[in-house]
């Protein structure tokens, strides 16, 4: 048996785990990563990446259908569901293989199997008990296998899985989670989406573009409840224009499965009940941390509502055991996991790091129109007691947006009136997921409105709206 002693063992090779492993190796730690199913975790295999591939197909399909708007002709526009899925799997597979390469390059050992922390400093790896999701990408070569491994520092990065509502358990056939929704054998004609968070809305947008009748059911009064209500309201209008139906302040109380698909009993706020029937249903009511079967309970590691409790540096209450990413609590986003992992390992290495500042984590939803945001929403800023200045700039005032044929959308900025601190930025419209980072950098560098106004934005770009929104907050907007 080869060497089984490490400085750092990371459990889970999702975006949090594998990035932490690379950073760990860079810092000179002898590092191993344990994975039971797929290199890259949900993100690369069943989440962020393959959905972006699906949505790209939908986007191009949408453009082809609207070719005339651009003076082009595309006749008999159609698609092959199997080919769309195949492309998505291909993208996922390519990146999955890439993680194996990155581990090798950084001399991080991969241990294949299911991990359990026997005690602080010791991980036992056994055969996976969980059946892998199919289709499965091949496991990397040259991995280590079952056995007992020692490490001074153990970082739990096991991610999360779909939340299940009792009575509405996904069966993989009629009631899907994102796993099944990612690889439809055929395009359903009708679909109920339970939950209007990022996952629910992205699938709703995808399936609607591909022709399905889609109804989204949301318990909260607005869709995408974490977003600024003005922005999510605009997104909702756009989605409705495309034919998506929304039932807000509503919940599914019962689901019956029959030969024609599923029939959901939906209860609205006013107590009324209605029945909706659709070919398929997607349950997208959030995710819960994978805290089980790791031995955490026996070790006395504190958990709260399905997540490991950590300090700002990923430390749990048990020395030598750390947690990062989804399993360590919301927001459950890949980029949060990555950053948290880096902070954790750098702190272990004794670097001068600062704890995670969750107020500056951007969020992106890749529906059509896209939604992106960072920082406080308008109601949250008011709630926090800020005297605020709000800037808004609509896509219709931007030359590039008009040229792109994307005149719907808005860039909204929220400033602290007293200090000029950028408290939040919220966008809806084409390509906003690529724009938000400008504001994230600005917030992270603690710029004020003045610096943003002094910054030259290239013309003609959508980014000009970001400056205009700032100008608008101070009554100086130019192009509207």
């Amino acid at each position, binding site marked *: 048996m080869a060497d089984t002693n490490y400085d750092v063992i990371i459990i889970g090779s999702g975006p949090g785990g594998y990035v932490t492993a690379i950073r760990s190796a860079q810092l000179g730690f002898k590092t191993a990563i344990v994975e039971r199913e797929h290199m890259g975790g949900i993100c690369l295999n069943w989440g962020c990446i393959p959905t972006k591939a699906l949505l790209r197909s939908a986007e191009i399909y949408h453009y082809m259908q609207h070719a005339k708007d651009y003076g082009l002709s595309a006749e008999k526009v159609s698609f092959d569901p199997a080919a769309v899925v195949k492309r998505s799997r291909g993208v996922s597979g390519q990146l999955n293989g890439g993680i194996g390469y990155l581990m090798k390059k950084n001399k991080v050992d991969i241990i294949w199997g299911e991990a359990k922390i026997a005690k602080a400093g010791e991980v036992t790896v056994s055969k996976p008990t969980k059946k892998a999701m199919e289709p499965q990408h091949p496991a990397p070569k040259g991995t280590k296998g079952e056995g007992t491994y020692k490490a001074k520092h153990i970082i739990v990065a096991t991610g999360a899985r779909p939340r299940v509502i009792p009575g509405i358990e996904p069966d993989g056939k009629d009631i899907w989670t994102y796993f099944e929704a990612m690889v439809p054998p055929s395009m359903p004609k009708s679909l109920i989406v339970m939950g209007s968070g990022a996952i629910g809305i992205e699938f709703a947008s995808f399936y609607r573009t591909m022709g399905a009748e889609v109804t989204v059911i949301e318990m909260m009064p607005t869709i995408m409840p974490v977003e600024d209500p003005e922005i999510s309201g605009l997104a909702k209008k756009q989605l409705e224009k495309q034919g998506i139906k929304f039932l807000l302040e509503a919940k599914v109380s019962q689901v019956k499965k029959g030969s024609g698909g599923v029939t959901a009993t939906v209860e609205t706020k006013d107590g009324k009940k209605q029945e909706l029937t659709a070919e398929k249903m997607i349950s997208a009511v959030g995710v819960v941390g994978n805290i089980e079967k790791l031995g955490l309970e026996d070790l006395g590691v504190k958990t709260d509502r399905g997540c490991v409790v950590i300090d700002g540096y990923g430390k749990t209450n048990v020395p030598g055991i750390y947690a990062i990413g989804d399993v360590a609590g919301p927001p459950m986003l890949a980029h949060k996991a990555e950053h948290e992992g880096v902070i954790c390992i750098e702190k272990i290495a004794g670097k001068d790091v*600062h704890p995670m500042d969750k107020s500056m984590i951007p969020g992106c939803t890749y529906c059509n129109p896209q939604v992106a945001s960072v920082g406080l929403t308008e109601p949250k800023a008011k709630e926090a007691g800020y005297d605020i200045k709000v800037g808004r700039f609509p896509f219709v005032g931007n030359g590039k947006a008009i040229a792109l044929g994307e005149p719907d959308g808005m860039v909204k900025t929220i400033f602290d009136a*007293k*200090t*000029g*601190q950028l408290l939040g930025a919220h966008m809806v419209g084409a390509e906003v997921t690529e724009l938000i980072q400008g504001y994230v950098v600005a917030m992270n*560098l*603690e*710029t*004020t409105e*003045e*610096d943003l106004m002094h910054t030259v934005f290239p013309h003609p770009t959508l980014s000009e709206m970001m400056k205009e929104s700032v100008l608008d907050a101070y009554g100086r907007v130019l192009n509207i």
Partner: protein
Amino acid sequence: MPINITMPALSPTMEEGNLAKWLVKEGDKVSSGDVIAEIETDKATMEVEAVDEGTVGKIVVPEGSQGVKVNELIAVLLEDGEDASAIDTSGGGKSDADSGAKDSGSKPEKGDAASAPAGDEKVPSVPGSSSSIEVGAKAATDPVPAPKTSDGGRIFASPLARRLAQLNGLDLKALSGSGPHGRIIKRDIEAALESGTGKAAAKDAEAPKAAAASAPAKGQSAEQVLGLFDKDSYELVPHDGMRKTIAKRLTESKQTIPHFYVSVDCELDALLALRAQLNDAAARDKDGKPAYKLSVNDMTIKALALALRDVPMANVSWTDDNMVVHKHADVGVAVAIPGGLITPIIRRAEEKPLSVVSNEMKDLGKRAKERKLKPDEYQGGTTAVSNMGMMGVKNFSAVVNPPHATILAVGAGEKRPVVKDGELAVATVMSVTLSTDHRCVDGALGAELLAAFKGYIENPMSMLV
């Protein structure tokens, strides 16, 4: 003879500065008052103005030079008819500066300050410094200027941290940063506010320039003001250093000093009689010129100085920690000059005979009008007199000039009906109003000082003993 221009000392602690920008080039003609260069120090960017006329013969220190020592030769000015061959910079540095000072030692520096300046803008008379330049505070164009370390280096602070420091009156130099590469970020400001470090005292010499400079800017913006008038109904006259300093200092005074006013009428007849008598008795030189010619103003200065001697607790300056009780009455006298005003100081006026006070005042007033006062002739002081009597003003209130705690506003002496022993009579009466800084001179104390002043004015013989 070429005139050496050397690096000026812009603050008492300044040892070196950065030559940020030359605004003239070799061969340019300059005349007195032209801004020729900008110099950056830890505290501010200052403009250097030429006092002498001439042609820029040679720029010795190039633009952008960091850490130029005070008194180091930075340029040479040629007088009419001289050419560049007259320049000898071989000695360089200190020795040139010394000779420069000797050459032009008779040309005193003109002040930028409208009135006795305080705080970080003190321009002390630095031994050996060339006097062929003057400096004027340049109002910051950027609301929150990039801060500098004491050695002129950049302080790295986030824009938000800079603004928070400004809003809270924190000195970034006193803070250490916890951001990347020691950058000062919001968190550091919050920590400083909690612990109370870096708080700049309002009139401390180390008070951050940024906070002070921004104070006058809080009124209506230029756009707001201009928006109220037709475009061709006015001309814009740019502010000079003196105007900016007046605006800044007096705004600062009115914003930070709780003013309080006491007025009293003084009968002048006895004083006028004594003055005539004394002036008649003045010795005359061979040209028949009298050795002195006392004015009412001279006697007012003397009376105030003696009153402050008698009421020493009114002869004070405020600092956050202590009351500064002055041992002598250094009386500043506001002198109106074209484009503003300046307040030269009669030092130890309580000790000086009236004739000396009078002659000093004549000399200072004349040189003030020529803008040729040395900084130590207008900086400091413990009180001030502002006399508008000669302009027929009956009564007015003046703005206290820190570090003074008092200023006496003097109106015209005029014949007024007064009641004496139950009878109506005519007397020459002068109204005066004392403005005080209530933080250090309370009402009763101000009244006591004014009573003492009135005593000297109405019994002027007491000023002679």
